[in-house]
């Protein structure tokens, strides 16, 4: 009895881990992280190209089934599955594009962020920045005195770029760790609390400052919700 329930548990675990590593599930994770993170994350190049192939396959299946005079219910189930995957893909790409729209100057001049974009996103960011630059120049900057015409600086005497909107990394996010993590340095709170290291149990929800777990999100150890 005990052994059979143990085997059942194991097979359930297997099933869970199998489900958790399908590409759609991975895409869902990437999508959730991207949605919750204040800054743009690394583009999941391999995952996205695999998902695109699968969508094409699914489209062919739906086509085949619907022309083959199959049960309309099963066709509509396939269609629904396809629609959901398509939504995830679209939403993922859309969130990234909207982040680029919002912080284009910052992304363009920060090499680390720039390297996270896909080739097409880079093209888009370049065109966009050019367009916005031209727009600002035409409406405002060309009418200002010579020393005040930079998009990135308030005037020529500013030493660094002080007119570039940046994402707010101090915001709080909901997250969950997959494994036991320790030694997380908190970046907020009273100064004497900051020296204490924070630990995370797997599967426990935390509401935490994004800056403190930024590196762990990037390395995939923590998922955002």
């Amino acid at each position, binding site marked *: 009895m005990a052994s059979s329930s143990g085997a059942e548990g194991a097979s359930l675990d297997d099933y869970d881990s199998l489900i958790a590593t399908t590409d759609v599930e991975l895409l869902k994770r990437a999508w959730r992280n991207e949605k919750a993170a204040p800054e743009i994350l690394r583009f999941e190049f391999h995952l996205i190209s695999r998902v695109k192939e699968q969508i094409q396959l699914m489209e062919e299946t739906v086509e085949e089934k619907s022309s083959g005079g199959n049960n309309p219910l099963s066709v*509509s189930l396939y269609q*629904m599955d396809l629609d959901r995957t*398509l939504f995830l893909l679209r939403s993922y*790409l859309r969130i990234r594009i909207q982040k680029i729209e919002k912080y284009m100057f910052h992304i363009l001049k920060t090499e680390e962020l720039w390297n996270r974009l896909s080739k*097409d996103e880079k093209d*888009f960011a370049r065109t966009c920045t050019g*367009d916005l630059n031209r*727009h*600002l120049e035409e*409406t405002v900057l060309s009418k200002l005195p010579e020393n005040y015409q930079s998009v990135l600086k308030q005037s020529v005497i500013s030493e660094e770029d002080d007119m570039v909107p940046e994402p707010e990394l101090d915001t709080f996010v909901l997250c969950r760790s997959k494994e036991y993590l320790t030694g997380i340095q908190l970046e907020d709170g009273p100064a004497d609390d900051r020296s204490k290291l924070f630990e995370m149990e797997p599967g426990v929800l935390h509401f935490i400052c994004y800056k403190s777990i930024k590196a762990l999100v990037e390395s995939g150890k923590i998922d955002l919700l």
Partner: protein
Amino acid sequence: MYGRTACQLVKEFASGDEGQLVSFNSDLFQQVVAECSQHHLELQSLIRKIQEEGLDIQTARNADHYGALIHHLALVRNKRCLMAYVYNRAETIRNLVWKIGHVLPQEIEEKLCHAEEEHFRKHSTALKSYMSKVLVDLTVDMVPPKDPYIKVRVLDDIGDGILLSDDKTANFACHSMHLLKRTDAEQFISRGQMEELTG
């Protein structure tokens, strides 16, 4: 007082509803630009005066220096206000592509200045070119799908012979109701030509 006009300009934008635009206030805008030129003239004349008195511009700390500083700071502040006005309007305008698509209705277009219309067009082109490269249309599917089909009522006479994605055509006469694929219906809904019937 210096900077008051610029502040009005920013307030005008900030007091509007988010995502809504009012007409580009070119009158106020020109006033701020003129104020900037005035500041610059006075700034230059003060600097000239310091130089004529034989003082070093880097180290002189007399009344003229602080006067020049005030003009410089007022100018920088005006620039920030002008930029904030145009930049935030541009952001709202870019978001229109997501909300209502690539063609602006007349009543919104009237509120934009010429450069802003141009910016909208350019941005819409950039977005289209990105979507054609990744082969995914990002402007549909804005909400997670529940059912592949939705019930809609036509609010506007769209006409017949509209080609749907399953190669059938439909007649969308005004007030008629249809069961459509969500991806087909979404473009009409965002333009206000159809409404989704729920429940």
